[in-house]
């Protein structure tokens, strides 16, 4: 039935050839529509940069680019002086430490599921990793607020605080206030959140290594670990590094869980377990309540700084993918 109808249709088309205008104009219009839709994505990216610059220009003019980035005072209440250094520092420390914690475990899981584990275990773990990567950041945040932060406070921070105050009181300012919400808590949660993401990207990179590469190493009499060490990891290094870079970008932009756990203290310098703030967390916390134009503009300027950093990280990831991987292909 189906095929007869299809045949009929095809014969119709052949019988009366389509008017040239339908073909030519249709193709032109289609290309233009699709072109405009593609262009609108480019427009979106550029308008994001422009909007952030435009809205932040008041603060940039007032404090100067360098002055704004180097300023360590953030006082929206009285003096209306704004400097981004505490947030730049907070973002950088939390994300660098988070990716440092997350990198090796993530690679380990990726190697395990790609090379060692039996098929069914590797399937389970891989699906689980993807599933966990999809958990919304607020859901992790609520666990952090009500379970993880109090637990860290009881088991780690308070004993550490007592020990330091008994034996090395001079280190107290460096250690900070053991309220549970702070830099260390946020960093650990951040690391936990980016592990599945890094794992998924690393697993994809490892899976792209061709079979011949492994077989050659097997043929030399290598053990399983030596195969991975000699044949798999060097081949996949570009993809793994690019994936780590993308995870780093994700850690920089991670907003909700960090805002819920970092304690939101806008002053500089920071302490290890005491409260701090990052660029996204300060925007989330203060944007809704900002009344002064200069305050709003400063938050937009922080958004601009965040934009520039994310842009750099993403471009570096794209560059690594292209240059350092042997395949030169795309990762995810």
């Amino acid at each position, binding site marked *: 039935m189906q095929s007869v109808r299809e045949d009929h249709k095809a014969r119709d088309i052949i019988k009366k050839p389509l008017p040239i205008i339908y073909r030519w104009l249709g193709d032109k219009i289609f290309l233009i529509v699709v072109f405009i839709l593609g262009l609108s*994505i480019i427009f979106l990216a550029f308008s994001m940069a422009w909007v952030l610059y435009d809205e932040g220009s008041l603060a940039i003019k007032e404090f100067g680019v360098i002055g704004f980035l180097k300023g360590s005072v953030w006082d929206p209440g009285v003096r209306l002086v704004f400097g981004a250094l505490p947030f730049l520092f907070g973002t950088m420390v939390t994300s660098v430490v988070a990716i440092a914690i997350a990198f090796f475990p993530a690679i380990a899981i990726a190697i395990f599921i790609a090379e060692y584990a039996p098929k069914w275990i590797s399937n389970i773990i891989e699906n689980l990793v993807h599933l966990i990567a999809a958990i919304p950041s607020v859901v992790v945040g609520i666990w952090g607020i009500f379970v993880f932060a109090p637990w860290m406070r009881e088991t780690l921070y308070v004993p550490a605080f007592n020990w330091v105050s008994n034996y090395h009181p001079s280190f107290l300012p460096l250690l900070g206030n053991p309220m549970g919400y702070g830099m260390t808590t946020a960093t650990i949660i951040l690391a936990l959140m980016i592990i599945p993401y890094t794992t998924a990207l690393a697993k994809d990179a490892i899976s792209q290594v061709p079979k011949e590469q492994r077989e050659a190493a097997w043929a030399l009499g290598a053990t399983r670990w030596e195969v991975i060490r000699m044949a798999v990891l060097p081949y996949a290094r570009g993809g793994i590094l690019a994936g780590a870079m993308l995870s780093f970008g994700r850690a920089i932009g991670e907003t909700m869980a960090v805002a819920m756990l970092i304690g939101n203290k806008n002053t500089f310098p920071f302490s290890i377990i005491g409260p701090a703030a990052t660029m*996204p967390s300060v925007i989330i916390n203060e944007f809704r309540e900002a009344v002064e134009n200069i305050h709003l503009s400063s938050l937009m300027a922080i958004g601009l700084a965040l934009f520039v950093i994310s842009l750099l990280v993403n471009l570096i990831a794209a560059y690594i993918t292209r240059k350092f991987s042997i395949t030169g292909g795309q990762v995810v």
Partner: protein
Amino acid sequence: MIKPKKTLRQRNIKDRFMVSLLVLSTIIVMTPLLIIIAYVVINGVSALNWDFFTQELGSPARAMQGKPTGLIHTMIGTAVVDFLALIIAIPVGVGAGIMLSEYPDNKLNPLLRIINDTLNGMPAILKGLLAFALIVKPMGTFSGLSGGFALAFVMIPIIARSTESALMSIPWSIREAGLAIGLPRWRVVLSTVMPAARTGLVTGFLIAFARAVGEAAPLMFTSFGNNYLPNRWIGMLLGPVDTLPQRLYSLAISPYKEWHAMGWAAGIVLLFFVMALFIMARLLTRKKVYY
């Protein structure tokens, strides 16, 4: 690279050692992640009740006096804002995906691809700021519409990328068959390539939707939040609207115990939706997933 000094025995021991290290780190990392899910499920399920799905939130006093409160307005708001975002994002994302896959030698494509990937990597909060500047400021009020646009900005790059790869997976012979019976190029794309790729397309939409449903950051200063149902349905689009992730955040940082419990309940509902969407997408296709 294999040093001849090592005996096979030593090499085998190293191999075993590395395996156990890998297994150990896998277990160590997966455990806390599973604990998070377990906590949310246990606390969330015990906080769920009928009122949660049928009542408005109201003021904090309402919860403290033990009157029935719930998040019906939040769930309706989430549905409105998220589907609005999907309606905005699908044409743009699919269009750009067609551009990338069907016109591979167009001069726009290298730039489009790199910008799309960069946009995908941009923090969601910046997309919220963009929607704030483009829509909230001219409208003069927080609105569901602006929330929809903010989430659409999250979805568009994901849909564009997944559409591209779904269309690319269709062999060129299908297109050639279409061209051979005299179809113009646009009919080839719309009536042969896209139907053949529909599973991949739908998977991409689901992934994008799942990602956007969980995003709170872009909604904080676009749809803003609202403790009540809007008076008229149009208020969903033109006035402040509550959404699940943003409400979850507000509940969690509020000082009221009753609201904390409700936060857990919101957490399990949100988790359930995201997981359901995600599992659906995984079941539809075993292809790679684009975050």
